[in-house]
Every structure is written in structure tokens, then in C-alpha cells.
């Protein structure tokens, strides 16, 4: 099944915020509570974009990004890291691991939506 976005976030409140926003913009999406779950979702669905948090149980965001990039099918899928951890070192690490861009939590809603739109357009 095709979805636009796979959303990976373990905090229920934040998840609710994000899904509400995505719903308003009519994006289709699937959610996962941690990296391992996300890989499963990706395997079962065709997705065009991944939005992931960094700090999660079971498998954290950075590991998820690396695992995704390892697989040929997902080498080019855009990945947004959406995290409260915004120090330069972490950003560097994230981009090195293969993420497409880094957004701070909480970010401006317009910024988030514009970024998503641009990345999906490229695909």
C-alpha cells in the first residue's frame, strides 16, 4: 500500500500534534513508535518520505536512518529528522548517517509543511 509519509515518534502527545497537522494537509501516513517498528512499516508499505524522532526505545533515530540507507530500495528516500536535540554535533551526525534534513522540535508549522512538500515534490 502506498503512503506519503512514515512518521516515527514515541511520545504520544507529539505524535498526536503531528498527525493532526498531516491530516489537515491531506497527507496519507503510517506511524511507528520506534525504529524497529518503522522498518517493518517500510517493508510493508511504499512510502515517499520518512519523518523520525531521534530518542526512542528499541531503536533510535540515527540507527534507523543508517539501516534505511543500507537498503538499496530506500537509498534515496527523503528523511527528515525532527528532534529536540539540535546541537551542531548531532545535526552533523544525522546528516552523515544519511538524513536529508534536520528540523527542531517544536518547529514552525509552515516550515514543516513546506519542507515536506518540497521533499515530496522531488521524488
Amino acid at each position, binding site marked *: 500500500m502506498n503512503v506519503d509519509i512514515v512518521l516515527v515518534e*514515541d*511520545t*504520544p*502527545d*507529539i505524535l*498526536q*500534534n*503531528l498527525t*493532526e*497537522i498531516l491530516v*489537515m494537509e491531506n497527507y496519507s501516513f503510517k506511524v511507528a*513508535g520506534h525504529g524497529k517498528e518503522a522498518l517493518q512499516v517500510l517493508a510493508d508499505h511504499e512510502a515517499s518520505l520518512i519523518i523520525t524522532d531521534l530518542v526512542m526505545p528499541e531503536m533510535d533515530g540515527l540507527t534507523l536512518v543508517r539501516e534505511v540507507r543500507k537498503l538499496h530500495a530506500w537509498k534515496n528516500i527523503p528523511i527528515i529528522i525532527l528532534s*529536540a536535540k539540535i546541537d551542531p554535533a548531532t545535526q552533523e551526525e544525522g546528516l552523515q548517517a544519511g538524513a536529508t534534513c534536520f528540523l527542531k*522540535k*517544536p*518547529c*514552525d*508549522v*509552515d516550515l514543516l*509543511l513546506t519542507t515536506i512538500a518540497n521533499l515530496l515534490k522531488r521524488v
Partner: protein
Amino acid sequence: MNLLDIILESIDEALVILDPDGQVLLFNQKVNEIHNQFGWTHLKTGESIFNALPGDAYHRVSETLLELKLKKNPIRFYADRIGIDGNRVYVETTYMPVIQDGVLTHINVLIRDITVNKVFENRLTNIASNLTSLIERANAVIIGVDSRGYITEWNRHASDVLGYSKNNVFTQKLSDVLLYPEDIERYDQIMAAALQNKSTLNFELNVKSMAGEKITLLLSASPRFTSANAIIGVIFVGQDISELISYRESLEKVIEQRTQELRQSIEKEKEALNVRARFVSMVSHEFRTPLASIGFSAGYLKKFKERLTPDALDEKLNQILKQVDHMTHMMEDILTIGKADNNRIKTSATPINLREYLHDLVRQVHEATGKTHTVNLQIDFRDTHLNSDEKLLRNILINLLTNAIKFSPGKSHVELQVGKEGNAILFEVRDYGLGIPPDELEKIFEPFHRSSQVNAIPGAGLGLSIVKRAVDLLKGVLTLDSEPGKGTTFTIKLPLEE
């Protein structure tokens, strides 16, 4: 002068030859020189010797003559007398009997002025005596040994310090009398070095006193020389530093103790700083989520407010308010923990009407938790009143009861049992819910800990931290018993005032 005269005058000594009765037969000039020194009359050949002698010498000379006649053996004696110039003169007089055919024919008297020798001898004796006195009276331990280690010198101070008198130690080996077995090797090395003309300065040596005590001496060992510069022994000079040593040892002990204490203090401080740092880090992490949520919610409202129904708008605003509420509660709890940790919470005990208090409390919890569970209250306590801090106790019980309800979703009730055990009151809060896994039992009282089983159950995770501190403040004991899947019981035991 004839040959005899030449010989007589050339000899060193003064010579008088007498007949057995004391008549002067022959003499040399040196005799008269001696007489000059004393102001005595000169000798005259053919006259009695007694004519030239002072009265006090008669007795001796006549006795000598008598003895010579009888025993016919040489007699030598020493005398000293003050000369006319006021100086003392020492004289050695030798009477040599000359015997021919068994008969005493005459007596050769040889007189030697041995003043120089004597003066020198006296000076030496004085020096020796002074030195001996010096050594004897010195305020230092002075022990001398010969090259084999036998004690040859032992001064008064040595006796005072070590107990042995000179008599005790002379002719004994120093190592036998004074040393402990473990020190003998080093002593032997020092002895050997000194005998090789290498002194050892300021070394510590433990010795045994006569009373068996251990005395620590600070010694210097140097070789003893003969006048010909040959080394004949070793002399040890030093002092008793036992007191200093024991003072030093007790100082060292104190220093070690203080260092230990300091080290422990520093460790404690470091740990405290660590704990605080972790807490700060946890707190900021905990606030980040509600703040992020508020951020997104407000952003969502800004962007989509025209498209929202009034109800949807309202709901979103309520979500924001809930987050604010959550943060406010967390902040208050954190402040409480902070105050408790800084000992700034004062407990005050007032008499609490147990039945009223507990029923009220139970009702409060029941309503606050949405009336999902009944709280069964059982009081098995004879006294109507309890003296305790009403607020703290309420905090404890409400927290535990709320948790009990939260962690037994789907169950119908929780229990609060109050009883007495010895001199303490017991509160037991029991639920029949999820229970706590054994590996989490220790961690549940840590700030912000959330059970691994209950991702969906909201809460800051500070309740139990506060409960623990509150129980400590009430000088009580908190224990818990839990079985995953069966339930959990928290027990608070508070001491009753006498």
C-alpha cells in the same frame, strides 16, 4: 778535669755517690743545680748528705739508707716539691746499692728532673679527665665499641636513656644487648662502614632498653682513631627521639585520617554534583516534551484556525492547557523534592482524627481518579487520633493510592489498610494490577522514572520520589512487595510518639 769528672759531668742525670752512712763521696754539678732550684745547700765531698737536705727529707733518706743496708735492693721513688721560683719540680730518685763481696760498699744515687714529663703527663691526664667528664656528662647518648662490636664506652646519658649501667654493658656486644634482630644487618653495615672510615650520620635505630621498651635513637656513627691514626672502634653519638617518633606517628595517623575524611567528602560532593546534574538534565528533558507539544499545538491553531470548528478549536486549546497543567504540577513536585533535599521542609505534628482524615482522603482520590475504582478502607487502630504531619501524610497516601488506581486499569478496587505494629502505625496500599518487574524495583523511586509497562499512562514520574522523601521526613520506613501480573503493596511504617 780527669776522665771521671768528664764522665760525671756529661751524663744527663744528677749523680751522688754515698757511703752506706750517707757521707758524700762523689757528685756531679747537676746535683747542685737541683739543690739550687730548692734553695738547698750545695753538696760537699766528705760531708753528710743530711747537711744539704731540708729537714722534711731526713726521714725518708735515712729510712732509705736503712733499707738499702738491709735488703740491698735498688729503691726508686718520686717526689715533687715547689722550687724557689714557685714552680713545682718533679724528681725521680733512684738509690742503687753497690755490693762487693756481699758487702754494701757505697750507694749510687741518680736524680732525674722529670718535671717536663710530669707536666706533660698531667696535662694529658687533665685532658683525658676533661674529655671523660665531657663524654660522661654530655647531654647525648655516647656509646663506644671496639672493632669487634664490644662496648667500651658508655656515658651517663646512655644509662639514663637505656637503663643499663656501665657495668651491665661493658664486655658485651652492643648488638647482643641493645638490638632487635631485624636491625642487626643494618647495624653491621654501619659498623663495617665506620671501620672503613665512612661515617654514617643521622640514622634512626630502634634499641631495647633494660626495661624491655623500644627506644628510637637518632645516631651518628664515626670511627675512633688511635694516636697513630689507626681505626680501633666506632663511636655512636645521638639522642633519644622516641617521643618525636611517636609524635610523628600519631601526626601521620591523623593526617591519614583527615585525608580519608577529605577524600570521602570530595566523593560525596562529586556524587551530589552528579546527582544534581542528572536531575537537571532529566528535568529539562521532561519539560521539553510538553513545551514542544504546546509549540506544535499553537502553530497548528495559527495555521488552521479558520478551518476549525469552535469545538475543535476548544479541544485544541484544552490540550494546551493540559500540557501547562502537567508542567505546573511537575514544577511543584520538583520544588518539593528540592526543598526536601535541602532540608527546608519542616515537619510539624498535629493530632489527626484518623477516621475523618482517611475517609476524606479516600473520597478525594476516588473523585480525582474519575471514580473508576473503589478504595476499600480498613482501620485496625485503637487510638482515635494520630500525631503526625498532616500535609506530608496526605501527600504520601494520595500519591500511593492514585498510583495504585493508575496501575491497575480494569480492576475494580484498591485497598488502604491501617494497623498497628509494635510502637508504629502501619499503612498498606494494595492494588491488584500490573505489578512491578523485579529489575525495576530499585529504580521506581528515582525521579522521572516511568514504568516500562505503561507507556500509555501519563504522569511525570515524580510521585514516588516525593513519597520516599516524605516518608524519610516522617522518620518512617517504606517497603514494597510486588508481583508482575498480580499486584503491588506499598507499606509505610511510622513511629508513634511516646
